[in-house]
């Protein structure tokens, strides 16, 4: 895994070494605006929760989870010939099957038969299997011109935002008696901190004008993200004798994933040779 991350991080520098030094460079302030929206897919490398939230971890993560990325807006300001800074609003989502969450919960409760809400109860108000986080990200990177209209932009970024954690209701039936109880899980919206590194690959439209340029471009982004979400949650329990109890606990969810997304945008800068 470490080798893969090293290769991933070194790839931009490999490309930099390969570039033709005779190609012209940008020499002035310019900007790039990625048009909404930038769809993508994420592959979750790992996801874990702290001990305190283990009781509800089935709602938060699952090894079979598949993520989606929707970067609604990304704007970049380019300085001189190589550096740039950017701001982006990103929405990451994780989706997994209810059956996987149930299996996960059942595994952690061997003494109980665990049952999820009937799929025919549409007004339960619970959202199983969906975790989303949206955050604003500040990005700093390099402009590496591979060819005249082809750029590679390695970057690192930091973001803060909010998450939306699934809620759920499950029934637990004791295997050795008719005793049962139901748990309702809910969370307050977590704070999310994101560290992100990767690169953009851009291909700009060709233009013979050597001065001020407004160009369209498309590209793809490959990046590694490590996100930490912290929140408090409540489990409400009601048992066979109608006894109810509420328990509050803290949650810390750490996830790492690789995302690949595609985008189109417009840019403007002055090209001087």
């Amino acid at each position, binding site marked *: 895994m470490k080798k893969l991350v090293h290769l991933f991080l070194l790839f931009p520098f490999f490309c930099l070494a390969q570039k033709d030094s005779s190609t012209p460079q940008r020499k002035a302030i310019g900007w790039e605006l990625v048009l909404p929206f930038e769809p993508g897919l994420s592959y979750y490398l790992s996801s874990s929760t702290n001990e305190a939230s283990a009781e509800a971890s089935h709602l938060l993560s699952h090894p079979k989870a598949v993520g989606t990325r929707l970067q609604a807006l990304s704007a970049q300001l380019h300085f001189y010939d190589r550096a740039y800074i950017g701001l982006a609003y990103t929405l990451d989502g994780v989706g997994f099957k209810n059956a996987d969450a149930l299996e996960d919960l059942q595994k952690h409760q061997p003494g109980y038969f665990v049952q999820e809400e009937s799929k*025919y109860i549409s007004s339960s108000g619970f959202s199983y299997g969906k975790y989303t986080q949206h955050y604003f990200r500040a990005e700093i990177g390099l402009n590496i011109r591979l060819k005249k209209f082809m750029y590679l932009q390695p970057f690192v970024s930091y973001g803060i935002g909010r998450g939306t954690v699934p809620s759920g209701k499950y029934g637990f039936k004791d295997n050795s008696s008719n005793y049962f109880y139901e748990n309702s899980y809910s969370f307050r919206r977590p704070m999310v901190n994101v560290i992100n590194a990767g690169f953009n690959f851009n291909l700009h439209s060709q233009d013979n004008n050597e001065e001020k340029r407004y160009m369209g471009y498309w590209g793809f982004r490959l990046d590694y993200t490590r996100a930490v979400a912290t929140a408090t949650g409540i489990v409400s329990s009601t048992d066979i004798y109608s006894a109810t109890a509420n328990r509050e606990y803290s949650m810390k969810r750490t996830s790492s994933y690789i995302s690949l997304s595609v985008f189109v945008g417009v840019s403007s800068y002055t090209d001087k040779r």
Partner: protein
Amino acid sequence: MKIKVGLPILLFLFSIFLISCEGDQTVKFRFTGLDLDHVNSAPGLPVIAHDSVPKKLYGIRLYLYPAETYRKGRYFDPYEAPPINEDPITKLTVWCDSTFNGAAPGTPVNNQFLLFQGSYLHMDTLEIGKGIDPTARYREDFEKNNFPEYVDLLLRTEPTNGNYKFHVEMRLYNGAVYTDSTTNVKLY
């Protein structure tokens, strides 16, 4: 010319599309019988048991023999148009022919059972002198099997060890009365 011919075809197809969007079935049924059996809830969902069951896991299964009486519409909608019971159960009484947890022989023991219809998230109490409203909507196969073939009464108390025989009487809205008894069961 092409537009003149194409427009009516498009309108026709659009109408078909709109018509196909609605058409929930109206489905009605009624219960036509009653049979009892013992169940054991050890596997989670209760399964049929025989003459000896741990008292903590005991339950009674009521087979209700639902019969479809009416169905009209294009498709079954489990959310918006669940089946309607034409003759609701107005009264369900459970009793034992021996002393059961302090209840004298022949007196109702409804309050010692809970109604299980496929989901531990939707358990109901069984009140003396009242009916129940069985549904199949908590079961996985509700779309295929629209009617509740059976319900389970799970024992919520712990009687002393011994042999017991239970009786159930079910009264319907139309006046029909169905009664059945379990075989003797050893609760331990």
